[in-house]
């Protein structure tokens, strides 16, 4: 068992937009240990989602290294990445991203289709996951028949049904009212405490961040050192837009 779940060294992501280059993440050194629950905070466009996407191998770094669960994910090919992600990472989206034509059960069961499992096993796993998020009585409902909070809980069930080591959540409460947000965050906390899942959430809501065990701040593409807050941070270099004369271009959210 790997003790370090995510380890990045000088991880950099530069987006090219037409002739402009935007530095979304600059030389980030980030270490996440098994059992951690970390909130990545920062304003829009600070690069927090970029870090999350790189960790989920949804994007490739421009330079630097990233190892997740001991795997050099930047070196994997599409098919390998897909299989790796299916097995090791559960991803939760801000806007839930359930498949509208599939029921709650079918949505949760979807990742299991990629595994060697009988139909019965799939159904058991799916039911267990839905019961865990408190929606055991909603298995046959379509997403449009559920509330936002319920949809997000189905999405979490889908993220955990393969029993992944790492759960990544991108603004999981961004589209929810306060009560639903509370439920979702409590659920994530429980997954961390009771089931030992390693969790990273991206948020700009300080209330949401308080559910995590630790907070890391990202400002203008720079990951602040552990324990540092934006107040005691001064940028090492001016925020980088390498092509001069375009003050309006902003980094990728």
């Amino acid at each position, binding site marked *: 068992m790997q003790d370090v779940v995510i380890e990045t060294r000088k991880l950099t992501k530069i987006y090219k937009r037409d002739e402009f280059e935007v530095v979304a993440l600059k030389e980030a050194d980030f270490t996440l240990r098994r059992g951690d629950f970390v909130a990545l905070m920062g304003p829009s466009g600070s690069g927090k989602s970029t870090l999350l*996407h790189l960790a*989920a191998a*949804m*994007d490739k770094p421009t330079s630097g290294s990233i190892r997740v669960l001991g795997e050099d994910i930047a070196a994997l090919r*599409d*098919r390998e990445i*897909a*299989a790796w*992600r*299916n*097995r090791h990472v559960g*991803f939760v*989206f801000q*806007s839930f*991203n359930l*498949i*509208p*034509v*599939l029921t709650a059960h*079918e949505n949760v069961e*979807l*990742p299991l*289709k*990629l595994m060697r499992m009988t139909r019965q096993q799939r159904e058991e796993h799916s039911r267990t996951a839905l019961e865990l998020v408190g929606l055991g009585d909603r298995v046959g409902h379509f997403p449009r028949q559920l509330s936002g909070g319920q949809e997000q809980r189905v999405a979490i069930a*889908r993220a955990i049904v393969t029993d992944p080591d790492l759960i990544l959540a991108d603004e999981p409460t961004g589209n929810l009212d306060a009560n639903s947000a509370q439920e979702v965050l409590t659920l994530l906390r429980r997954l961390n405490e009771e089931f030992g899942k390693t969790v990273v959430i991206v948020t700009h809501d300080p209330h949401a961040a308080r559910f995590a065990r630790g907070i890391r701040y990202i400002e203008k593409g720079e990951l602040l050192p552990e324990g540092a807050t934006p107040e005691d941070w001064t940028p090492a270099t001016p925020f980088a837009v390498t092509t001069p004369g375009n003050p309006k271009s902003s980094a990728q959210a």
Partner: protein
Amino acid sequence: MKIPLSYSIRNLAVRRTTTLMTALGIAATVAVLLAVMALAEGLRSAFAATGHPLHVLVTRKGSDSELSSNFERRVFQDLLYKPGIASGSNGQPLASLEMVTVINLPAADNPDGVNVTLRGVGPAGIEMRDLAMPQGRWFESGKREAVVGKSILARFPTAQVGDTLRFGKGEWQIVGVMDGGRSAVNSEVFVDLNQAASDFDRSSVLSSALLRASDELARNALINDLETDQRLNVAARTERDYYASQMVASAPIQFLGTFVAIIMAIGSSFACMNTMYAAVARRSKEIGTLRVLGFSQWSILTAFFLESLALAAIGGLLGIVLVLPLSNVSTAIGSFVSFSEVSFNLSVTPSVMITGLIFALVMGVLGGLLPARMAARKEILNALRDI
């Protein structure tokens, strides 16, 4: 196939209006093709039912049809003694000298008259053809009497039993109706050979001879013998081959129909492609999500490709349903669709239906491949950002 098929099918159901419109376009295309094929199939089966496998049709060399063949009576006398000809009930060789010409009859849908084949035959000609007689009797030798095929009865109001027809040198009374199953004989009028020959001044120059060989081997030898006999100067082939060659009559319609169907198919493929491109664009976020869940590009491609195929299959089945009445109605009420002077049923056979379905699926393949490829090639992050 890892993404469940229900995903593809339900997405078709969700946008049912678009699905139905696209499917209808494909259905119309398939219907055009199937109508043409049903026509060809019907004609083919009518002609195929006409020929007896052991019959050899002899015409003058260089004539493509009985109508244009000048066949001399003395040549027929020489034919009779060729080896391999079967004997009839009276011990005589089963060989029929025949005269074929065209007469004009006013039809129900065409009062100006339609060409109908008139065939002068002797007793051997009647014996050789397996004909039922649902009404009346056969003509008597040396009389101006005629027997009409059952399709003639249906199409020509003035050609019923008891009616008289005017052609040749006088009036001919219709004394019976013959039924040749599905064969082309149903569209012909039979009269006594000698009476017809004298009426049309063709007592020594007639049209053709029909011979029955004793078996298949003898038939082939007979054909070879006749073809190579320089003295006779005749062309010989099996009756089946002769009627099959008459299929060229339907070639222009088949060509035109197929041409129209292909043009429509190109249009329908683009309609299908358009629908699928729209689906890919609208479901961009879903595609991104599926990728994040661990589905490969190949799974995405397969899912969208299958959706396109399912769409096309719906169109194909609708198209088959559209043409089915063509087959049913004509058999049920006995209304024949006439093609030149041969009547036959449009025939939507299972093989015609399968061809239609395959044709539809080809449209699905052409229309689905590019959109499915586009879906598979989307970058995950770009796909997730699109709304």
